[in-house]
């Protein structure tokens, strides 16, 4: 039940990064700009050549379609070239599956319901707000019913309420058995919503484990160069600096 990166090297981006991720966890990949977060995520998705294993099997040995059925990847760009409607966008998530229209429709319905998009299913993307668009993009990933959901900064450009709602959704997916890996910038979000964190610095893993154990003021100072301390109760902590 693990997705693991083994000593990944990409010149200028990763310099020997190893990390293991488990299903049922929400793991946040953290680190300063340029630490290699997006590169690690892309490698985990099988988009870069590198030693990544999915439940012991090297990703490179899986056929691309088989890999695509297991691992859903939401890139940071959020690009959609054409003005699709929400339902059509979500249906793209079915592309790796060779299933019939009925089964596809069922999976799309489930994804749209999970993200409260039923009322918007026939609305073109150009007429969605930023929060609705982010949910529609995630619905595309969920429609593929992957075991693993890898999302690169899925909360960027969302307001606070939508960020909270989406984080709760990721947690629910992990509770249902998916492995969720998110690249995040906000340490408080990682502290409050992730079950595990992987902190990258200069292309290597500086620390990993449960957020309360990893994200100490000492580590934050070492990695981000920021004197900071945690305020508030567990589950609702804020970072003061």
């Amino acid at each position, binding site marked *: 039940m693990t997705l693991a990166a083994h000593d990944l090297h990409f010149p200028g981006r990763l310099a020997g990064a190893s990390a293991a991720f488990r299903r049922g966890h929400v793991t946040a990949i953290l680190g300063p700009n340029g630490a290699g977060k997006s590169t690690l995520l892309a490698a985990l998705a*099988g*988009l870069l050549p590198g030693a990544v294993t999915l439940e012991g099997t090297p990703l490179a040995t899986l056929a691309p*379609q088989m890999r*695509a059925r297991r691992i859903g990847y939401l890139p940071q760009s959020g*690009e959609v070239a*054409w003005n*699709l409607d929400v339902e059509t966008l979500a249906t793209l998530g079915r*592309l790796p599956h060779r299933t019939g229209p009925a089964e596809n429709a069922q999976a799309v319905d489930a994804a749209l319901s999970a993200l409260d998009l039923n009322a918007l299913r026939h609305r073109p993307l150009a007429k969605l707000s930023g929060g609705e668009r982010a949910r529609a993009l995630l619905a595309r990933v969920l429609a593929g019913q992957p075991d693993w959901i890898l999302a690169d900064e899925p909360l960027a450009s969302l307001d606070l309420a939508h960020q909270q709602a989406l984080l709760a959704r990721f947690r629910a997916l992990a509770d249902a058995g998916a492995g969720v890996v998110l690249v995040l910038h906000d340490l408080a979000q990682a502290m409050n919503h992730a079950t595990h964190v992987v902190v990258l610095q200069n292309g290597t893993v500086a620390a990993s484990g449960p957020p309360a154990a990893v994200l100490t003021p000492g580590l934050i100072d070492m990695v981000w160069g920021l004197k900071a301390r945690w305020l508030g109760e567990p589950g609702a902590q804020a970072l003061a600096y």
Partner: protein
Amino acid sequence: MKRPIVPLALALLIALPLSLLAGQVWIAPFAAPVKNAVPILMQLRLPRAVLALVLGAGLGASGAAMQGYLRNPLADPGLFGIAPMAALGAVLSFYTGFAVQPFALPAFALVGAGGAMLLLGLIAGRAASVALFTLAGMMIASLAGALTSLAISLSPNPFALSEIVTWLMGALADRGWHEVAIAAPPTLLGLVLLARAGPSLDALTLGEAAARSLGVDPARLQALMVISTGLIVGSGVAVAGIIGFVGLMVPHMVRPFTDQRPSSLLLPSALAGALLLLLADCLCRVVPLAGGELRLGIALSLAGAPFFLRLLLRMRSRLA
């Protein structure tokens, strides 16, 4: 329900027989019989109409695929440089005098198209990005254009010169069943390959990284695009010269009536392209012009340039 296929197919079924009646000699089905009506219909107008359908369908569908592949509504099948290379091949057949031999002209053009495909493959290689690939295509196009100009400027005699210039302005005039036999099989094969590229083009809507995460093999898609466009554009140029703007305009006309996925556009664009070229060629036949008929390539460029401009203005106002 957004289904443009049935209306377009119906329109084609109505337009095809009607188009055969129009021309310098009008044939009215229920009036007194026209002299030589049967040879005019069967040897002149029907092959020409069929050729218009074949080329129009190929250009429309490959335009839709190209816009999907480059994720750009301003893309057209000419961007890979295949059409200019095919044209260069044809021009060289005039230049060297081989064009008088039967089938030499289309053979030269097809060799040119094949050369462009080969060059694209060599330059782009295995892991080329779409942007690099497009630039390679534009470089090939400009090289072919320069060599075509060179051939024109060095043309051995005024007859060759006039042949070259006339031929470059694409047309369907005086084309017969031979040309249909040359263009139809590669075009049909190209259309089948485009249909196979459909799901990958849909995935590419989400960008290259997301498409790959959905299992798309970029090298396979690139090969499918080059081969299908090469077959369609190469064989089209081989029989009719350069016919521009169809591949650019047609996908825009049908896109609002589809769910906008590139694969949903392929068949409607093929039908609409066929209809557009059939009607445009009809118009060329009936417009009275001193010194012969209006050239199809010129007519479409005359219509296409304002269309393109309107598109740009609309995009600008959307961005502003």
